[in-house]
């Protein structure tokens, strides 16, 4: 499964993706290693900052502040929810449709 897929418009190789992932991971770890390590756990140094006040315990979850995110992306998720009917025939139909589109794209790319 590590072969290179030539499409005529380019190529796709899992090894390239793996290399890219490792490079990004190395950059992330490098940036993370420059962070501060001297926080003493179990003290106020790791407590939430609440303008100098003691952070209150509240029943209101942080998810409540994401309402704008949910409203903005709701249309997209409703579209996805409609696709998930729970009927296996619908999923197979979707799978076949995507395969047809991909094969057409690869074939057209090879012909061009």
């Amino acid at each position, binding site marked *: 499964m590590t072969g290179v897929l030539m499409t005529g418009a380019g190529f796709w190789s899992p090894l390239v993706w793996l290399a890219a992932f490792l490079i990004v991971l190395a950059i992330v770890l490098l940036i993370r290693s420059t*962070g501060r390590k*001297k926080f003493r756990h179990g*003290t106020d*140094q790791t407590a939430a*900052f609440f*303008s*100098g*006040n*003691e952070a209150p315990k509240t029943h209101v979850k942080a998810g409540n502040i994401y309402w704008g995110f949910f409203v903005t992306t709701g249309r997209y998720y409703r579209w996805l929810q409609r696709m998930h009917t729970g009927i296996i025939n619908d999923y197979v139909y979707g799978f076949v449709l995507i395969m047809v589109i991909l094969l057409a794209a690869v074939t057209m790319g090879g012909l061009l």
Partner: protein
Amino acid sequence: MSTADLSRALWVFHMNTGSCNGCDIEIMAALTPRYDVERFGMRLVGTPRHADLLLVTGPVTRDMEAKAKRVYAQMPDPKVVMVIGNCGSTGGAFHDSYNLVGPVDRILPVDVYVPGCPPRPEAVIDGVVKAWKKLEEKGVKR
């Protein structure tokens, strides 16, 4: 101290413990293009958890005592405390007020004093340089 000695950015958290805002305005003035301390990597941060230096203004009113202690406790080590202005240094005009628990060194371990009412931005910058040296003495390596 030359700019070559400034091996890392100094992040500052500013806390007003009852100041009249005079010293706070001078701190802001140090950040304006005329003085521009940000070119040395000094910047104000929004939480003590990111700060190396605690800038305290004001004489510490009774209500601010616990908050000042908590903010100091939330800073990672090593850390330094710098007091700006007469009120924070000695209590100033409010030294015998019934509502005062300061000056700051009664509440927190102060490393640098910058007296003045208010001190000029040049004095603030000079104090920051001293604080920076103290921070490096305390072992600022991450």
